[in-house]
């Protein structure tokens, strides 16, 4: 090999190696923007889910386990089990009129739900269910739950009969099961029910 060729090769190698090193640094910084060594950092509008603090189920709450699943849904005193799809659990709080003013549901992952596109999936699904005026208020991913990592949305919609609800809907990926937990209440009741709904979501296990 001529000296000029060797020199050219060395220059190309150094330049490309420097470029590779730069890309690697950018990639690592993007994966761990907070410098954490374990667990992916939460992404998206994390402030909207700052209430999520996995903890112990408060005394007096009712816990129901999903059939054939490690998932467990807990609800405050006064809430009652309601009918739902097989393999799911639903707990509701009703006004004297019978209107649902608090709603909790846990449903095993059924197919297309993925953390990567959970917000678009959920809103698309809600439209399929006949819900209208579904507005995405916030979304975040890689949120820490008691037994896994979740992607969550906060949105508001109108049902086919004109009732308006706000919901927290999270796809939680556990070690052996992936489950959706939904917590909802009418916007007019949100301020009153949100602390209990937040607690129920925080205590959810899958």
């Amino acid at each position, binding site marked *: 090999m001529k000296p000029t060729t060797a020199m050219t090769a060395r220059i190309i190698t150094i330049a490309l190696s420097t470029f590779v090193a730069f890309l690697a640094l950018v990639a690592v910084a993007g994966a761990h923007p907070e410098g954490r060594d374990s667990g992916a950092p939460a992404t998206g509008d994390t402030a909207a889910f700052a209430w999520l603090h996995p903890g112990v189920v408060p005394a007096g709450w009712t816990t129901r386990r999903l059939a054939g699943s490690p998932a467990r849904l807990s609800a405050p005193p006064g809430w009652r089990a309601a009918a739902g799809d097989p393999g799911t659990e639903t707990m509701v709080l009703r006004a004297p009129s019978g209107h649902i003013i608090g709603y909790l549901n846990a449903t095993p992952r059924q197919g297309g739900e993925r953390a990567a596109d959970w917000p678009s999936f959920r809103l698309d699904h809600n439209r399929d269910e006949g819900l209208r005026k579904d507005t995405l208020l916030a979304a975040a991913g890689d949120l820490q739950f008691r037994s896994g990592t979740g992607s969550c949305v906060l949105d508001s919609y109108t049902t086919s009969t004109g*009732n308006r609800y706000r919901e927290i809907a999270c796809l939680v990926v556990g070690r052996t099961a992936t489950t959706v937990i939904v917590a909802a209440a009418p916007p007019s009741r949100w301020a009153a029910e949100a602390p209990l709904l937040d607690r129920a979501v925080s205590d959810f296990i899958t």
Partner: protein
Amino acid sequence: MLVVQVRKVAAALAITALIGGGATSAAFAQTHRHHHHHGIPQHNGGDHDSDNNGGPSDGDGNT
């Protein structure tokens, strides 16, 4: 020699691309493959979910 070095750099680039792909995986995709069905009629026509009766939407994927 030049060919060998270029191959090494190309391999390093490929590995870096894989790392970079992992770094962006946490971001939400804007759309998803719309493959779930419109299978449960409203107004209690299918199962007995609250969302079939004007109540809140449950967590089913409706596949």
